[in-house]
């Protein structure tokens, strides 16, 4: 299947989802549009564009031709991003960064252990010092206060 058709289907589902979600918002009328007015209008336009994508697939590459050779790296990195989202406040910035950088340098990139330690500890401490101490941007210290 052409990638334009797949993306068209995904966008059509999204537009239907938005249209359904706007049911809980007052639509208002033309002279006094409510909070659901523009989202519904935009969802309708998106649905039309999605249909164009689904129907007109000329020149679009096929799904099989899309290369995903970096998918394991990408999956590991995006998992680290989500880990940071949930751990940065309970564990603190520095511990979270040591864990993430340690994983990326040590496990994913297979660097030597002493390089991993130097880079993970060094980068997290230096970045903490630059942002928290120097630029006075408060970074979380977590339950351990580190």
């Amino acid at each position, binding site marked *: 299947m052409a990638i334009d058709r797949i993306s068209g289907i995904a966008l059509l589902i999204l537009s239907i989802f938005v249209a359904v979600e706007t049911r809980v918002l007052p639509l208002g009328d033309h002279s*006094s549009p409510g909070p659901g007015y523009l989202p519904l209008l935009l969802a309708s336009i998106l649905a039309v564009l999605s249909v164009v994508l689904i129907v007109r697939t000329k020149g679009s590459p096929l799904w099989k031709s899309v290369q995903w050779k*970096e998918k394991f790296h990408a999956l590991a990195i995006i998992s680290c991003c989500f880990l940071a989202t949930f751990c940065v406040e309970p564990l603190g910035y520095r511990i979270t960064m040591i864990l993430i950088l340690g994983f990326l340098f040590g496990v994913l990139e297979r660097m030597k252990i002493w390089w991993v330690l130097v880079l993970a500890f060094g980068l997290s401490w230096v970045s903490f010092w630059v942002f928290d101490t120097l630029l006075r941007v408060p970074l979380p210290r977590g339950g351990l206060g580190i």
Partner: protein
Amino acid sequence: MAETLQNLLLGFSTALSLANIFYAFAGCLIGTMVGVLPGVGPLAGISLLLPTTFGLEPTGGLILLCGVYYGAMYGGSTTSILMRIPGEAASVMTCIDGYAMAQKGRAGPALSIAAIGSYVAGTLSVVGLMFLAPPLARFALRFGPPEFFSLLVLGLLVLGYMTGGSIVKNLAMIILGLLFGMIGIDHMTGYFRFSYGVVALGDGIGVVPVAVGLFGIAEILATAGNPVRPEVLKPKLKVLLPSGQELRESVFPIGRGTLLGFFIGIIPGSAHIISTFVAYAVERRVSRHPERFGKGAIEGVAGPESANNAASCGALVPMLALGVPTGPIPAVLLAALMVHGISPGPLFIKEQPGIFWGLIASMYVGNVVLLLLNLPLVGIFVNFLRIPYRVLYPTILMFCVVGVYAVNSSFVDVGIMSAMGLIGYVLRKFDFETAPIVLGVVLASIFEMSLRQSLAMSNGKYAIFFQRPISAAFLGGALILIVIALLPLIRKGIDYGWRRELTEAEKGK
């Protein structure tokens, strides 16, 4: 004229303070590094540095960020010339003749002409910005909600057309961006929209996590695991100077590139990229020896390099005068001003002359700093390319996390950044441009507000957009654009080569 000069003097008194010179210097230095490193574009660089400006005065913060912007524009040319790797998409055309010159042992003159061209173009286009922005702002004082809405419709359609790739896909991304911008409290009624009980989403999703996610994280996801380590040519300082003939051959390309770049920069879309294509095509067309292009013609470096720096200045005209950003980078700069409680728009120049003219003057200072910085330090900058990517990307990832967290001290923003990174990565695989999403997010609130106010003014009649002359003119422009976009569907065989080339360049960056 006298008033402009007086204001400029006021600007220089602000820009020449020790602190602001330092910010201009730091911005240019960081920007050049950002431009040199492939994968870290000016947008991600500016977004990451945004939190560091919170503690600064608005003028200082904006000077720093603008320094990063035009520093990155120049920095991208270094890797194009020395390694045939464009540091950012606007340097793609420089690769062709810049690298050919480097292979012939003329890397030094190519870098010098790129620096001189960027300096001249940057300085002259600041003059254009200085004279064009204030009258445009005065004109925009006549705008009411219908005019703003029509202007935004026109701007977004132009963006969809001028960005490379499929127009339908670009328009879908603009709509997606506008929908993302709808998340949070509705300012007119106080309703929570699409926030699903997450209180932190009440303020909506910020432009910084969206921009960093779509450009920084998505780039890391797409390029991590790539073992490429290209050869780095290192020029010597003594061979940096161009010959007399090379200088003479560059004068007119720099002039033409400056003019083209500035005016194309004002148009929404990937203006700085388009300007380099147009400048290169013009140089090849007017050259007496077009056969030299692709084999190391210095005009092929001078024209596009001048054009991309002039375009970055041109892009600031509508942002400062109308409060309407024409691309994702001016959108982040706009967000930076809004963080400091300043809303650019028609009244900005009148109400905040210190900031506007300080910024203008700092651009003159920044261009001098850029010239002084780049030529002697080019050997140092290319060393950044020797840092292995497996060390670089976790470091960039760390700065993405800390930069985004610092904006609101919110882990929800880090989550938004991560989600946007994933969305950006998948969208790239499906040949979608992600820049329109950022612009959609930024413009969503003004877009909605002006539509709803216009409809309230007209008692629900859409005719108001056609009854007011300025609004009708904008919508007329939008209609013409739609017709032009539909023409290839009606008349097959029309050559839209520049759009195809633009798409290829953006893919290959």
